[in-house]
């Protein structure tokens, strides 16, 4: 094998660890060295837990030598800095939580710790997940490993960049309107947002609770299935988590896809679609047909209303969720104030970044008296229509294939000053979020500039199996996911 240790996928590392060919301490050493090399340029990590990782690695090595390894034992994983990690700073990339050290673990973190995975560090992100480019972080923008002048996408910017740059084996992210799939597409990796409810949100710092979902950023689909199998399941601490324990997602790997019908929604192939993205998708659809699946045209007529509906609903929920930052129980507190209300105002105004304030204002406005009917309630009705569109479409197909993003990664600074243009870059990922459906982004080509192109596969609610089966079959017959950056 010509690959260096840090370039291994999760499943390759698993095999080498279990066979006793490498030790977890070696793997962790290789990854830390890689982080040291790339992080000054890419800014993928906010915190690297150098002190604790070798203890975790030694513990994992002991467990592996006792033949008690679980799928994630000894695997160096990165975690988006919005998931609470006990004793390890969790900032949400905000000045507000710059020094916040959670007294508890998120359920997803508890699950990976129980398997003795190595939590290598916390990754950079758009502040409180509000952004599509990684540029709104208080800790500075993350850069795209394929071209440092371009954005890695967001909001799980650091998780995507770290996986693409081989600075971890795999990473956890969160997706509210595309925050896993869009950066995965921009960075040429695999990003999976499972159905809403699949993974407990306990310990995930809330942005828009009816949309937020934890998911994975990995080097291939097999890794996504492995990691997700360790995260899914009902949690009494999250009433919206699902107890629909189906068969393991890994059991869908390598299954026959010839009985599947894949729908191509015409609304996702508009005139304005980047021609290179379009031709990559056309070739991908042909490939899938060649693998035996049926491909047909379908329609999702209310796609054009999704961005407006999403930003109204998400901002409304954000305005409400972020009311908790009062500078008293935790978080930043201004020290020079006249009275209680003045302290609230000053603390929040000084510690929230521009985009966060913009969304709080938007959210408060669309819910305020006189406006809620035209904005929030109308957006909720639009959400019903968008959901119904998917129900209708799935009468004609099992899976839906679309571009993940209308164009490859844009330049740093290109959209950050024009919020609406930034919001519109989520146009293809938002509808599945509004409907709570599982969706994956996998690499399906590169443009002439050498930037990755991603395709999205959307499934019926809780039909992750089929999504994995198709993504894996495509990957087994293409080489896009194996391309590495020059970093």
């Amino acid at each position, binding site marked *: 094998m010509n690959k260096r240790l840090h370039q291994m996928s999760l499943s390759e590392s698993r095999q080498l660890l279990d066979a006793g060919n490498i030790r977890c301490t070696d793997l962790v050493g290789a990854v830390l060295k890689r982080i040291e090399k790339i992080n000054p340029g890419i800014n993928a990590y906010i915190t690297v837990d150098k002190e604790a990782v070798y203890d975790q690695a030694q513990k994992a090595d002991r467990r592996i030598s006792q033949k008690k390894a679980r799928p994630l034992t000894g695997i160096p994983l990165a975690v988006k800095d919005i998931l609470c990690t006990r004793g390890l700073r969790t900032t949400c990339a905000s000045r507000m939580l710059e*020094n916040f*050290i959670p*007294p*508890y673990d998120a359920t997803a973190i508890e699950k990976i710790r129980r398997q003795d995975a190595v939590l290598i560090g916390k990754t950079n992100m758009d502040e409180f997940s509000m952004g599509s480019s990684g540029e709104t972080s208080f800790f500075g923008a993350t850069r795209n490993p394929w071209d440092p002048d371009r954005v890695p996408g967001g909001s799980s910017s650091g998780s995507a960049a770290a996986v693409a740059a081989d600075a971890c084996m795999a990473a956890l992210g969160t997706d509210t309107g595309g925050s896993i799939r869009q950066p995965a597409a921009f960075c040429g990796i695999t990003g999976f947002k499972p159905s*809403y*409810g699949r993974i407990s949100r306990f310990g995930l710092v809330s942005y828009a609770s*009816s*949309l937020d979902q934890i998911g994975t950023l990995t080097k291939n689909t097999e890794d996504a299935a492995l990691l997700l199998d360790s995260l899914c399941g009902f949690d009494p601490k999250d*009433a*919206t988590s*699902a107890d629909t324990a189906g068969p393991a997602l890994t059991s869908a790997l390598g299954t026959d896809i010839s009985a599947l019908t894949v729908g191509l929604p015409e609304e996702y192939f508009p005139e304005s679609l980047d021609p290179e993205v379009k031709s990559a998708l056309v070739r991908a659809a042909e490939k899938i047909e060649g693998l035996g699946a049926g491909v047909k045209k379908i329609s999702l007529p209310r796609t*054009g*209303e999704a961005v*407006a*509906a999403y*930003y*109204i609903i998400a901002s409304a929920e954000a*305005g409400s969720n972020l009311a908790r930052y009062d*500078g*008293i*129980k*935790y*978080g930043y*507190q201004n020290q020079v*104030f*006249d*009275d*209680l*209300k003045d*302290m*609230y*105002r000053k603390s*929040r*105004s000084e510690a929230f970044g521009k985009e966060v*304030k*913009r969304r*709080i*204002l*938007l959210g*408060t*406005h*669309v819910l*305020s008296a006189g406006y809620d009917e*035209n*904005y929030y*309630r*109308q*957006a*909720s*009705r*639009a*959400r*019903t*229509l968008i959901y119904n569109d998917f129900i209708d479409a799935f009468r004609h197909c099992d899976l839906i294939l679309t571009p993940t993003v209308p164009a490859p990664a844009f330049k740093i600074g290109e959209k950050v000053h024009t*919020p*609406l243009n930034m*919001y519109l870059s989520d146009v293809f990922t938002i509808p599945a979020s*509004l*409907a*709570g459906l599982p969706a994956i982004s996998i690499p399906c080509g590169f443009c002439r500039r050498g930037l990755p192109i991603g395709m999205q596969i959307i499934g019926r609610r809780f039909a992750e199996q089929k999504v994995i089966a198709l993504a894996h079959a495509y990957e087994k017959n293409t080489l896009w996911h194996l391309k590495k950056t020059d970093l």
Partner: protein
Amino acid sequence: MKITRKEILHTADLACLQLREDEIPGILSDLKTVLAYFNKLQALDTQNIPPFRHPRDDAPLMRKDEPGISLSQKDVLKNAPAAENPFFKAPTG
């Protein structure tokens, strides 16, 4: 439905945010653009369409009320900018 300077200041007050004089024009112009885009939803026929409630509408809303172990007071107070055991300390007024 155009947002005015007066409204934005009122909204900021509701959200406990203080806007600097020099940032108001930028925020106002951004919000105007975004709200104008939101208005496209007005053209959507939603008569007899119920609002979307929640993606886990089928989830049980109630659970048994069973006491469990919670965080210690010490742990809970650890992140407070000001605390006087066993209380959070907040300014008066």
